[in-house]
């Protein structure tokens, strides 16, 4: 059952990821991207990472994609861009590069080590943390203890992004 579901989600994820880059309409690309993110959330559920799946749906498929949609519709692109969408050597090349990368990864992950990801050291420590603190606690506790420095740096990062965006977008200079 899990296997069948996984293959369905994986197929939807890959198919709609292709749709993102091949769709000729930006809104179409965007909806394909929502489908990709939603099926990734499904895969997270299959991996028993329920919290991640929920965050994926709420933050990415929900908030960020809606913002994207607003921006694209507000920009009102028209149809002039469509003549720029061509299949050149570079698009073929990028497909080849991505395919090679995927092949490498499949070989690296498949080489006699399938199935032991969950039983590896990392998997076991995650299991222990989840059983002790719950799915949210397993992420929240390290975030405010071990990884408190990166967490604070993220604050500076957001400040920089806001300042940069305001400087570039403010109307009267």
């Amino acid at each position, binding site marked *: 059952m899990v296997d069948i579901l996984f293959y369905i989600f994986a197929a939807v994820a890959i198919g709609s990821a292709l749709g993102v880059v091949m769709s000729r309409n930006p809104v179409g690309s965007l909806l394909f991207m929502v489908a990709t993110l939603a099926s990734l959330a499904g895969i997270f559920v299959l991996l028993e990472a329920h919290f991640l799946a929920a965050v994926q749906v709420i933050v990415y498929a929900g908030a960020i994609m809606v913002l994207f949609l607003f921006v694209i519709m507000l920009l009102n692109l028209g149809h002039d861009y469509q003549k720029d969408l061509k299949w050149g050597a570079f698009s073929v090349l990028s497909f080849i590069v991505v395919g090679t*990368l995927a092949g*490498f*990864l499949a*070989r*690296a*992950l498949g*080489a006699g*080590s399938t199935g032991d990801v969950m039983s*590896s*050291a*990392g998997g076991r420590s995650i299991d222990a943390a989840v059983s002790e603190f719950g799915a949210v606690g397993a992420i929240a506790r390290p975030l405010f*203890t071990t*990884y*408190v*420095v*990166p967490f604070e*740096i*993220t604050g*500076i*990062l957001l*400040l*920089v*992004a806001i*300042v*940069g*965006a*305001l*400087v*570039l977008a403010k109307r009267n*200079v």
Partner: protein
Amino acid sequence: MTLDFSRNLDYFWALLPEIVLSVWAMVVLVAGVSGRHRPGQRTDSEGDPDFGQGATLGWLALAGILVAGFFNGWLYGVTEVGHTSMIAVDHFRLFANWIFLLAGALAILISFSYVYRQRLQVGEFYGLILLAITGMMFMAAARDLIVIFLGLEVMSISVYALTAFNRRDRKSGEAGLKYFLLGAFSTGFLLYGIALVYGATGSTNVVAIGASVANGTARTGLLTVGIALLTIGFAFKVSAVPFHMWTPDVYEGAPAPVTAFMSAAVKAAAFVAFLRVFLVGFDAATTYDIWYPIMWWLAAITMVVANLIALVQSNVKRMLAYSSIAHAGYLLVALTAANATAAAGMLFYLLVYTLMNIGAFAVVIAVSHQSEERLQIEDYAGFGWSNPLLGVLLTIFLLSLAGFPGTGGFMGKIYLLQGAADSGLWVLSVILVLSTMVSYWYYLRVAWFMWMREPVSEGQHDLVTAPLPMRLALVASVALILYMGIFPSSALGFAQASVHGLGSLGGGLLGLRP
């Protein structure tokens, strides 16, 4: 003082320079916003020697760099327990911090008049420069790939905004957009690489990665792809050759002081993080065999291609952009060599490069009337005879960039070559020397125009001015370059001592390859 990172409070002490600088940046931002609406602000008399309100903020930002420098010096008296924590407190980081702070200070000094003439928003300009330095300092301090990534993003986003800062200039906006899109793309590579390395070794801590690689528990296949993607991500940031396409356009379009700042400091930060990740995390013989050929080819192609393209540039800013790509190639030779001598040589070279590159850009800004005009090489015709002092300074900076004996650039190249020789990289050394000879042509062509050609028109250089802050920066850089060219041992000894702390962590820094 000894820091034990099992207490979270000790991170506060370890990050004091970064914290001070980021808080100071916020003060500058707020000061810039609160002062803007004062009546009678924009009088724009061309000859205003005080540069309006901008000067106050500029000196304020410089004071912040001084205070951060003070705390950076204070950290020399601090030791850490264990050498495995997320934030490194070692001399390598502190030396790198000196480079970033110096680059920031010089960039602020040379932008006083430019910012005023171009009517840029001063508070945000200086604030973003300080925040970019904060990000670089996080990168130098990071012993964890997550911190490196976040530091890189803080730095990059500040620099994207700075690149597009001049909104009246279409080229600036185009450069900013180009840099942003390609930079975000390369960040994706870096992040994917980090994820794969984590998958292979089970940790994002560089020391733990090194341990996992050394005792053979890392998965080689995943690790190989991860290292390749990390290399791509870093190579974008240092603009090594197959990933350099953005560099000339961005450097040409960005406001000149920003170009000076990012060509020196961003490159230095990327190289410092590059060095720490690869020489501490991936220094075991098995992983060195993976990345050694990649790095070898990157270095070789970067040196050859960048120097050849630079030969045909007629725009001085673009020529300096290709020259900065070429310098990335020289520094990649040190990374390929992967020994203590080369690492110390790299720190020394980054210091010298910061000084000579920002110095050269300072004169370029002066010649272009503190704006974005007069950047063609013909505009330098006869410049030396009408402004002898600036002419001599630019000549010294160019000679140093080319690597002329007696300047810091020469000693830097000597140390890079020494590091390469220690690892037996003879072919790369020969390429380095040959491409340096090629580079003499395009550096000296500018000097030739300055001293050997008649001015195109009478009074062509009458409007060239170098205000006091810029003169300070010029004198400081030229003095340091000549000092390091003639008495290099003190700076080199300092760099070697700084690398020493790094070597004791990895253990395998010396003698990997016969």
